């Protein structure tokens, strides 16, 4: 592991104040227009069970992060960078995220 970046608490005995922790929820779904065979299969299964009103299902993923940051805005900026770099593939996926104080 590399050392903590400046301004970010190591959480150990360094004496630095610990930054507030934020709960970041990232919801990833297949992009509109991208075929979602998993969602379609679930939709058909629901219809077979008698839920005739199910017009569409999109199946996605949820990521629950705990993130140290000075502010909610900073946590959001950093989470968006993570989404662009690794968590999502913008060619096939959309995402929304929300930041809140952890429960």
């Amino acid at each position, binding site marked *: 592991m590399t050392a903590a970046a400046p301004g970010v608490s190591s959480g150990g005995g360094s004496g630095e104040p610990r930054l507030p922790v934020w709960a970041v929820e990232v919801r990833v779904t*297949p992009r509109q227009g*991208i*075929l979602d*065979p*998993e969602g379609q*299969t679930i939709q058909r299964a629901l219809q077979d069970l008698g839920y005739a009103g199910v017009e569409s299902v999109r199946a996605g993923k949820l990521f629950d992060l705990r993130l140290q940051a000075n502010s909610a805005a900073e946590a959001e900026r950093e989470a968006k960078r993570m989404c662009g770099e*690794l*968590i999502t*593939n913008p*060619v*096939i996926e959309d995402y929304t995220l929300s930041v809140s104080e952890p429960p």
Partner: protein
Amino acid sequence: MKFGIVRFPGSNCDADAYRAVTEGLGETAVYLWHKSRDLESSDVVVLPGGFSYGDYLRGGAIARFSPIMGEVVEFAHNGGLTLGICNGFQILCEAGLLPGALTRNRGLRFRCVPVSLRVERVDTPFTSEYADPDVPAETFSGFHRAPVVQIPIAHGEGQYTADAETLDALESSGRVAFRYVNGAGEATDAANPNGSANNVAGILNEAGNVLGMMPHPERHSIRALGPDDGLPLFRSLVRAVGTS
């Protein structure tokens, strides 16, 4: 002539690629560990099939950050011949060396089956040997006169997807290298095993030195084991390196 075959944790077609090169072709191959930053003077880099990093997150998403990938990207940008097979194709897309992405197969099934492929171009470093009259291949009777070859697929996430603009660019610049077809060489929906856009099975980058394909040519490269329709691909690379 040296092929460098990258091994990620979870690669499982690395040995097949190695034997295709050493036994099928009679050339030299080395394994390149994912943590290495040295391509060991390889003439061709192969990213083999498998389930690197357990396919966690998305196929190829984690592998693209392996130390060796920095070298592979630089090698490819400098014109180095780079072949990504199956999971290797996914990694090349995630790394931005090829456009588009590979998603869950239409029908959700993992498909492990020999398929017919039309070789769309026989003037690339990866396919020149398919033009050889000695290669046993049916001749496609359509406008391409391209050979049709039998090569197996084995994937759950091989549906090629890209936006309309990207697909148009690939088609108009002749960068679709292989297409799923029926026995008559026609790219029908029934012949499409995974729902790929335009029946795309393999694509080239703009410079033509990077090929990604879902089918496994290395599995059809040793005559004693059955069909060897994949071997001309490797022979093409030998020829390309020899003449460069």
